[in-house]
């Protein structure tokens, strides 16, 4: 009896773990008219840090962030940019005060992000849920254990 319970418990926790492992946490979206079908986390990092201003297909990119402190942004920072807010502040202070670049604009929610991306041909953003609009498409999903790169 006890043994069976133990097996059940282990099995259950393994299952939970397995499903958590595959769980999609971030959906990276671009405008539906963008010819890109996929983006790598590396390319996303370069786009969001404005190291490059164009997608691989040559289209100019308009990244949009979510609010500082939001779950989406925290995940994006961790999984894709692989930097915390502190390191990002350090990065942007160099860009801003040398008149180079400023951080991408902010959309305050998933739906704002979707709207922005659907209305900007070069828009690229991230959501914590599946997009609802057919004006955008998912080019990368970030999973819990998938890591940034």
């Amino acid at each position: 009896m006890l043994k069976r319970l133990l097996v059940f418990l282990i099995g259950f926790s393994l299952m939970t773990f397995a499903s958590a492992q595959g769980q999609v946490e971030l959906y990276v979206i671009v405008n539906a008219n963008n010819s890109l079908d996929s983006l790598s986390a590396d390319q996303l990092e370069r786009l969001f840090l404005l190291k490059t201003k164009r997608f691989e297909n040559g289209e100019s990119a308009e990244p949009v962030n979510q609010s500082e402190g939001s779950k989406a942004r925290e995940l994006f920072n961790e999984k894709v940019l692989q930097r915390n807010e502190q390191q990002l502040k350090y990065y942007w202070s160099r860009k801003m005060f040398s008149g180079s670049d400023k951080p991408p604009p902010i959309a305050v929610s998933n739906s704002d992000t979707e709207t922005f991306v659907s209305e900007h041909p070069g828009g690229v953003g991230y959501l914590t849920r599946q997009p609802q609009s057919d004006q955008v498409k998912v080019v990368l999903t970030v999973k819990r254990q998938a890591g940034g790169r």
Partner: protein
Amino acid sequence: MLKRVCMISSLSRAVGLAMIGLCWSGPVWAESLEERVSQLEKQQERQSNALELVSEMAGKVEVSGFVSIRGGQIDSEETSYVTTLTDEWTFSEESVFGLQFNSTLSESMSASLQLKASGLRDGVEFEWAYLEYAFQPDLKLRAGRLRAPGYMLSEYLDVGYAYPWAQVPYEVYGWLPFNRYEGLDLRHWFSVGDADLRVTAYAGTSSDQKLRLGNFEYTDQTSRFAGLEVQMTYDIYTFRAGYSRYRFELTGSALDVYLLPLVNGVTIVPGIEPYVGEVKVPGLIDYADDVMSGDGVTPGSGFLTDMILLFSGDADPANDALIPVLENERSALAAQLQPYQQIPSMNEDTYGEFFGLGFSADNGEYLIMAELTSSYIEGVFPDVEGGYVLVGYRFGNWMPYVNVATVYTVGNNDFPALVPIQGNPVIEAAIPGYGQLVEGANLFTGGLIAAMNALRLEQDTYTLGVRWDPAVSLAIKAEMFYANMSDGSYGFALPKQLLELAAGNSSGRSVDEITISSPEENVTGVRLSIDMVF
């Protein structure tokens, strides 16, 4: 709702209350209250419209800023390190405060303004003031007042938060013409495979800034210049290379104004009875000619001449042997004066070339930064090469770091080798008083030799420090440095008396009251800084 793009953390908020006020009231519209209210209502309706949110940014002013409060102290009583640190603790000399305003005027046009107050005494200066036009998102032209990207950190030297040290390595950034300028730059971003590049071409003029070492302004200048900079980032690595070429017009240099009179004397016209004519304050040459040497024939024209006349005229044959020795001393003296007469004026039209290579790697844990730079200015200025390597290791909010830096003078500058005047010991022994005359001459040469050594940089510096980021937007740093000067160079530890002399603060004192201390062999110092951005 309204989303201001001011980046203000709670901590800096506490510090910069006044700035916050500016920030929240920053955008100024010429519109009535009613219009505003109805607009707000409309905005609420369209609350979730991201487009609105972004377009709202157009025409608004974003305010950001930085503060770096720096303090420090060195263990040397006689010198002043880059003219800002002495043996007394100070917090004012290296501190800076800046405010930046950015405004998006249209989709492709924006304006920026950066105000800076430094040292708590200079007043406020415009560091940046430009219009930017984006032909493409990756091709932008700026015009106005800009800062030249001479070396890796040149564009954000004032923003302590943006780099690891409490103060940037002076071995590379200690004395440079790279400051703000009026001109243009064209920047282009592009990628080659996984590497992202930025190429900047710039050209302009600069006239309202003095060349300075720390806070010691040593000459006025007007310059025209052009340069090219390439930055490449790949993975965790950044590489950069820059070259720029300057044409300088130097005027009113401290060397000419305050040191050359030590050689040539200075003629002043007091215009006060009974001194209606010119009054000549003697320099080294006058002193050596008129007091020591004389013209060789006229009695009373100089000490050596008088002695020659005396010994030729007296009946003592024992003294005759000294006559040729005295004659030789006159020519020896003249020969020793020659290098002093060759000290060139610093006020000249000249050119300079600057070259720099930079590297950094940052994987979030380890930080490595390194630069190699070379600056060449035709003429009296030292041609120097410098560099540094920083290695830091982050754990949590702490980053201890080690920095090794060096600067040395290369090639010949036009400054002749100066040595103290030497008297013939035979004469000094035989004729009482001659030794004192030689010492008198060296009261003049002391300042000149010190100035020459100050124009030769030979220094290695080892720094051990820690950066602590207790909150986003706030960094506190403490560092200790050990600077080693070689070959009789003052390095960056200049004697206080020389600085006073060059700053013209020695009036009311005669030259023999100014004794300039010799170079320190090493200097140990500490620095603290509190850096914020908001």
